[in-house]
């Protein structure tokens, strides 16, 4: 384990993170948006793992477990809401959810 490895890891995590962000911004399908969120959270989780590895600390992995749990909770709530959205509009287009503005 060297610090170089850590930086590679962080960069990878950052790339994943950016991917997720781009997904949120560009995808209109809510499921894909949710997926992108998962990617971002997991990117952060990856960063923790890499960081934990650098310091040979378990904190990173503990954090990752928490992140997983939280991500699961988010997805659960998210899917529930998306379901309602689909029921109402028969589509998963995020842009339809824009009744409020101004």
């Amino acid at each position, binding site marked *: 384990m060297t610090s170089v490895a*850590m930086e590679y890891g*962080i960069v990878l*995590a*950052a790339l994943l*993170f950016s991917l*997720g*962000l781009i997904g*949120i911004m560009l995808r209109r399908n*809510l499921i894909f*948006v*949710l997926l992108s*969120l998962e990617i*971002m*959270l997991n*990117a*952060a*989780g990856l*960063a*923790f793992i*890499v*960081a*934990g590895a*650098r*310091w040979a*600390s378990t*904190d*990173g992995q*503990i*954090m990752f477990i*928490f*992140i997983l749990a*939280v991500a699961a*909770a*988010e997805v659960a*709530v*998210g899917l529930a*809401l*998306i379901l*309602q*959205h689909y029921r*109402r509009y028969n589509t998963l287009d*995020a842009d339809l*959810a*824009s*009744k*409020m*503005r*101004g």
Partner: protein
Amino acid sequence: MSTTDLTALLPFIILAATTLIVVLVISFYRNHFITALLTVIGHAAAIAVLPSLSTITPRQVTPLMIIDDYSLFYIGLLTAASLIVSVLMYSYLQRREAQREEFYALLLIATIGSSALVTSSHFITLFIGLEVLTVSLYGMIAYLFTYDRPLEAGIKYLILAAASSAFLLFGMALIFAETGTMLFAELAEKLAADDDLRTVFILTGTGMMVVGIGFKLAVVPFHMWTPDIYEAAPAPVTAYLATVSKGGMFAILLRYFIELNVYAYETICFVFTVIAILSMFTGNILALLQNNVKRILAYSSIAHLGYILVAFLAGGALAAEAVTFYLVAYFITSLGAFGIVGLLIHNEREPEDVQDYRGLYVHRPWLSAVFTAMMLSLAGIPLTAGFIGKFYVLTAGVGAALWILVIVLVVNSAIGLYYYLRIVITMYSEPEETAAASGSLSQSLSVAGGVVLAFLMIILIWLGVYPEPLIAIIQDIAGRFGS
């Protein structure tokens, strides 16, 4: 974990137990009143034990949480706000068609999360507390998912909040990667010991954490969600968002800044200065001609967070005091304002349009007096807590010679007056002759809601006239903490 540790965690235990009880009761016997009553009792009990805990403070409970006077104060504040929200929500749900009881479980969990947030001394607690709060909020915002707007708001909030949490997490990871610790205390030591540690990782990490925190606080440029969510969520939930969610976040931000002495990082301070200025201007200008009362309050909350940031950036004991006092005042006012919006709900519709309040003074003089008081407090007019709060913030700002921020604050206070007074004007205008007189808003008020509002009004004026006791407490807690 010793008994003392458990004692220190008593508020959490009580709240968690209440949650369990509520969930169990619901599953056996659905009764709105009983559920709400249990919730209220749970909150009250949690608040009641707080004073006795001050004997064992400060106490580090595991590396994750610190129970000191500061966190006790904020737990009390958040729980009290949550208590008021639960009462308001009781009145509110009475008038709406929904599964009512589960809400209280969500509320309790969110409060636990927020309280955990203020006690955190470790990134994990920070993250967990935040997420517990946030995930519960998804449910609370979209609680009336059978309606269009709450659902839309829930989805928006979920997407954006999750994204911002990811930012926060990534930022934490970067800092952890550079320093190898997630404990505030250790971080502080390492950062203080080594100036070279201000690397790209640390700064980027801090920047990303700012995004996460800024989102929760709804400061510019992370404010976009605010109006929509405020508008769509049930009014008491909006009150909750404005108070418990933001208050908890601000408390931990202050703790984090002070413990890590982030004030020494000029760039971060600069970033916050820019954020404060933008928030004040953007919030007020957006609110200026807005016609939806809840959106007005949303935009004004953006501006108010800007005001608090002025005091926050001043640093030092005075800043901690000012921030705390302002938050207390802001809690009272937000609860009162949204409480009224919630109490006046009629025909499945909240009175959102400014015109809905036309002639309120004629139909409900006392309610309009309370609403006026809340608006004036937001505007910072004497005899209200908001005046003392604004005074305190300005004191901190001038004391630290933050002239630009102070001037911006003054200018924005003037802009803000315009829309607060617009609401007030409407209430005192002649009511329309038509059906409105018979009263879209003339239903009888719920007793509980009325009592809560009266209580808030009394506190508001009490603090505006005689803030000395509260200031004494705050100085004792926050002041000592800050210096």
